[in-house]
């Protein structure tokens, strides 16, 4: 079941999605972390961040909306307090990073490259760029290119760039981060959304808007993954609403080389294990020996009739 993601070999294609698996500790009593393809940790910034005021989450139809606000202890505390726990396991550790400026991204990437026990970086470009009036890094192809290139310039680790779906042309952004040197691309991050308490006529979230995740976004994610797979040559990692093995298989068949399981972890803390078992069972049933017999095998010619 192994796959190669931009030079990083994973024992299977199932990773956790950033922000849904903490730094692994909360799940150690539910899952065998050694069985995961990779752990993608909660996003790390240069300095500690407190996050947003509550309420931070609200259930949505077949999903949830969150405005956690990227709460995290900062890169220094991550390396000293959180990373040692993950180093005990035989699992690829991928650190999701984000900054408010291009320089911050570089400094975090540099600090993590010097730490031991990190196998790749995932660059979150869905956050506001304070130097450009708060516009999201991931919505401008040139800025997305620049962030990717600068992070690459300070690290030898494989660099995965995680794309925002809140753009007009995701293929164009994918193209530009590949040109910037991305070793792989993951998508999609959450879709912007909101909901209203009609009795009190107030937003459900203190920050009013948040990111929608869960099965509600899966069809959007699949369509965007297909688009990006067709556009770029680097490996693509599919993320968005994967709840079970069948959902994961959809992404793999469409052409993702690996998948990330996110919100499902909250609902079923053993979701990743169930998904690995389910993919294994599917491959046996279809007499497949290698993930390559599965990935990107969508038959569009004999489609629906």
């Amino acid at each position: 079941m192994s796959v190669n993601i931009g030079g990083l070999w994973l024992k299977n294609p199932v990773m956790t999605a950033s922000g849904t698996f903490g730094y692994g500790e909360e799940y150690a009593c539910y899952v065998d972390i050694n069985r995961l393809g990779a752990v993608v940790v909660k996003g790390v910034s240069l300095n500690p961040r407190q996050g947003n005021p509550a309420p931070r989450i609200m259930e949505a139809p077949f999903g949830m909306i969150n405005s956690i606000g990227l709460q995290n202890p900062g890169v220094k505390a991550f390396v000293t307090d959180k990373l040692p726990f993950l180093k005990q396991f035989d699992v690829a550790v991928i650190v999701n990073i984000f900054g408010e400026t291009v320089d911050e991204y570089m400094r975090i990437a540099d600090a993590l490259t010097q730490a031991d026990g990190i196998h790749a970086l995932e660059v979150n470009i869905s956050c506001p760029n304070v130097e450009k009036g708060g516009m999201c890094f991931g919505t401008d192809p040139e800025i997305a290119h620049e962030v990717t290139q600068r992070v690459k310039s300070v690290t030898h680790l494989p660099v995965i760039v995680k794309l925002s779906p809140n753009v007009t042309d995701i293929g164009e952004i994918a193209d530009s981060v590949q040109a910037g040197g991305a070793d792989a691309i993951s998508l999609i991050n959450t879709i912007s959304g909101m909901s209203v308490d009609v009795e009190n006529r107030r937003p459900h979230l203190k920050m009013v808007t948040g990111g929608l995740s869960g099965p509600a976004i899966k069809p959007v994610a699949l369509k965007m993954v297909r688009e990006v797979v067709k556009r770029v040559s680097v490996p693509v990692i599919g993320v968005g609403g994967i709840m079970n093995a069948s959902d994961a298989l959809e992404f793999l068949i469409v052409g993702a080389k690996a998948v990330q399981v996110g919100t499902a972890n909250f609902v079923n803390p053993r979701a990743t294990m169930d998904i690995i078992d389910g993919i294994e069972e599917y491959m046996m049933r279809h007499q497949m020996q290698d993930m390559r017999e599965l990935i990107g095998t969508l038959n569009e010619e004999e489609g629906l009739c």
Partner: protein
Amino acid sequence: MNRNKFLIDGKITVNRRLINEHYLMTVVISDNFPKPLPGQFVMVRLKGRHEPFLSRPFSIYQYNHQDDKVFVQILYRVAGKGTRILSELKRGAILEISGLHGHPFDILPHASNVILIAGGVGVAPISYLASHYKDNIHNTDMRLSCYLGAKSAKHLLGVETLRMSCSSVEISTDDGSSGYHGMVTESFARNVAAYPPDQSLIYACGPASMLKRISEILCDYPIPCQVLLEQRMACGFGACLGCTVEVKGAGEMKRYVRVCTEGPVFNIHDVIWG
């Protein structure tokens, strides 16, 4: 693996409406469901369904171990779509339950006055705590006093259960239809001076406005007080960071902590009441 962390199926044996929007559910579970400490909670969802999508957090109201089975009672209020769907479930429905979550109440076996203050459905964890004191703490000098508040006599929950565990149960209703006419906090405030702070301890659970008012009353009477908070949660075990509450940090600093993990029990003076 931590025996106190599990993900297990349970079957509904009883799910009935008590009064108004309040329901009592009994779930039967295999006996590897450890006995919860007072203040701990479980996350419950309808197995195999995406609606409601997220599990819902519930305190334990009662726990009984019989033969090779555990019967857990959950007293809950229909507060939105998720609890409404749960309230419509019939006997035999299968739930997926994760637990045991949260930091329990501190138990003080040598206190002279244990004061319990419960508002609305906050009576559920308070009642479970009262039973714990009655069953496990054998201190003949201890007096367990409960202040129970509700909108009206018709909304009172768990009175009989509390009477079995407590030395006294003072009832307050907003409309005066039973007991003290007014808020439960004011009923408590009338007696607060009688409790020696160094020999007393308060536990409270109820609406945020009730807990805030208790914190104000206790500015003049330094009786230690633990409160159990409620917040919307996605996971219940510390991963989603969705259920935070603002607490006092070092100096003038404020910080966010997780109700599910650092709580749901907090020192009343640590919480910043909005």
